[in-house]
């Protein structure tokens, strides 16, 4: 009995393979082509905050320190209007077992896989999540396969991704290293079928509920120390799980007035599935290449309904340049004594200009750091960029051109943000929801769902639908 392993045959079996590999009956929550019961799914398929805390306590995940960046805050005040410059705090997520907040996400998936009796876990990810799953799998005595997109067609790999492969192998996981392309998913499906492993998807309710503790903890810590809530919580944004989980946790802690601000590195113009563009970028996550498409169409992943729905939670979405993040990475090491990895520093780069917009007595929280090391270090990245034809200069942030020029700011006051047009993204989400589902008419209930999912008013949704020629 041999299975047909051709691309089309395997993709045609995807629903069936995924159902077995996740154990979630999504049908239970799906209400129509467009609408589904998001909160119901999070509640019934996921775990409660208390249970997640208990799971994470067992594996040493979470309860990370919240550090006040006193010198960076001083630099912010020196470059702000008088009386302005909020205190910047950072949640040191690098203190998690595998070195990033992704341990929170992995811990719940791996716990669930163990509980259901799966022999192992598989994750398709080139990011820190691989190491997190591998580390948690070891704690739970499960097998582990990590499928990564690593190389271009010259067999050249981003040093950061090579490091992420190494870290998974250091935990003894099987690492499947692929060249660029979305067919990574096809490879993952074949291996799920072959091994009967659990799909530790980044986008299941398990993963997202695992991040809720991050938002919850940081609000508790800020309140205990400062007697107030943070004005801004700045979150490095890519696939949307970080924003979604953090915001849900902060809301569960009652921090309804804290603004959730997503931050991504601007990589506009580079195509994520392009063999040529692949090694022209100096960031492998936390960039607009993921941030924009996942926010405007979350249901593009390996699960039928994505639990990461960032538009529901974003109050603002800002971008920074590659050069600014490298500059801020240096600042964190040199004036705060914290040598940390790239992704968390994206939200730190955004937090600096954001803190300038607030009075001194307000608080801005950068909700993560990640470990750094060979390959992840700015020197490794800038050297790789140069060898791939990217120019590295000192200059104003606006001189950055993704894939062509990286401009390291000349001074601290140049650090800035570019505001993304969230209204346009909400419109784009609504368009995707109707065109991808091929609908020409929506019900009032569906309109209500779209309004919730895009965090927009029903009137706004109705006007966008009208513009698209969709009847209500």
């Amino acid at each position, binding site marked *: 009995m041999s299975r047909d392993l*051709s*691309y089309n045959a395997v993709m045609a079996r995807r629903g069936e393979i995924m159902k077995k590999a996740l154990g979630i009956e999504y049908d239970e929550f799906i209400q129509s082509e467009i609408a589904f019961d998001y909160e119901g799914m999070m509640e019934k398929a996921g775990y409660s905050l208390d249970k997640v805390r208990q799971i994470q306590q067992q594996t040493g995940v979470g309860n990370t320190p919240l550090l006040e960046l006193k*010198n960076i805050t*001083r*630099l912010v005040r*020196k470059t702000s209007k008088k009386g302005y410059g909020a205190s910047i705090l950072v949640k040191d997520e690098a203190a998690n077992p595998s070195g990033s907040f992704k341990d929170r996400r992995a811990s719940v998936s791996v716990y669930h896989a163990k509980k259901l009796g799966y022999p*192992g876990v598989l994750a398709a990810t080139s990011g820190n999540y691989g190491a997190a799953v591998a580390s948690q799998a070891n704690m739970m005595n499960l*097998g*582990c*396969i990590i499928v990564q997109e*690593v190389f271009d*067609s010259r*067999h050249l790999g981003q*040093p950061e991704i*090579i490091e992420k492969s*190494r870290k998974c192998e250091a935990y*003894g*996981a*099987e*690492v*499947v*290293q*692929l*060249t*660029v*392309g*979305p*067919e990574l998913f*096809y*490879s993952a499906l074949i291996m799920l079928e*072959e*091994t009967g*492993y659990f799909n530790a998807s980044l986008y299941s309710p398990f993963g997202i509920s695992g991040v809720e503790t991050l938002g919850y903890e940081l609000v508790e810590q800020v309140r205990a120390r400062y007697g107030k809530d943070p004005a801004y919580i700045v979150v490095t944004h890519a696939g949307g799980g970080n924003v979604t989980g953090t915001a849900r946790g902060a809301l569960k802690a009652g921090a309804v007035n804290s603004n959730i601000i997503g931050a991504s590195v601007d990589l506009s113009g580079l*195509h994520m*599935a*392009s*063999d*040529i563009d692949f090694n022209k970028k100096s960031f492998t996550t936390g960039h607009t290449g993921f941030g924009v498409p996942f926010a405007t169409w979350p249901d593009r992943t390996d699960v039928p309904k994505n639990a990461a729905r960032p538009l529901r939670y974003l109050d603002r979405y800002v971008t920074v340049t590659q050069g600014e993040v490298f*500059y801020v990475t*240096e*600042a964190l*090491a*040199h*004036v705060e004594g914290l040598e940390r990895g790239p992704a968390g520093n994206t939200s730190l780069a955004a937090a600096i200009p954001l803190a300038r917009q607030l009075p001194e007595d307000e608080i801005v929280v950068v909700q993560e750091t990640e470990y750094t*090391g*060979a*390959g992840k270090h*700015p*020197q*490794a*990245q*800038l*050297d*790789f960029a140069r060898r791939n034809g990217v120019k*590295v*200069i*000192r200059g104003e942030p606006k001189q950055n051109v993704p894939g062509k020029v990286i401009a*390291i700011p000349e*001074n*601290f006051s140049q650090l800035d943000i570019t505001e993304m047009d969230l209204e346009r993204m909400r419109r784009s989400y609504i368009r995707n929801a109707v065109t991808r589902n091929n609908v020409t008419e929506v019900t009032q209930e569906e309109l209500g769902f779209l309004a919730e999912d895009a965090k927009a008013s029903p009137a706004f949704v109705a006007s966008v639908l009208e513009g698209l020629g969709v009847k209500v």
Partner: protein
Amino acid sequence: MSEACKQGEWVEIHYVVLKPEERSHDVPDDTKKVPLECWIKGWALSSGTTGGQIEIRTPANRIVKGTLTRVNPGYAHTFGPGVPELSSVGRELKAMLKEGN
């Protein structure tokens, strides 16, 4: 230069997952021109030489066949050489902290 492995040694293999004509229709043109390739590490099930076909047992206990590419593969990524555009950033910020108050 070819390398030889003994049975049971930690090695890396390579194989083509999808030929260019088998790739998904939605990949960009430059990607569609090249195959989807794969590298996996595991323990050799027999002796072999680089460039030849071999089977391995992976850490997840799968048996996979491919072309032997490396024996006892290691890592060559580094912290990178010094970058002049970055080297003075720390000093500049420390000087700024000393100014005024």
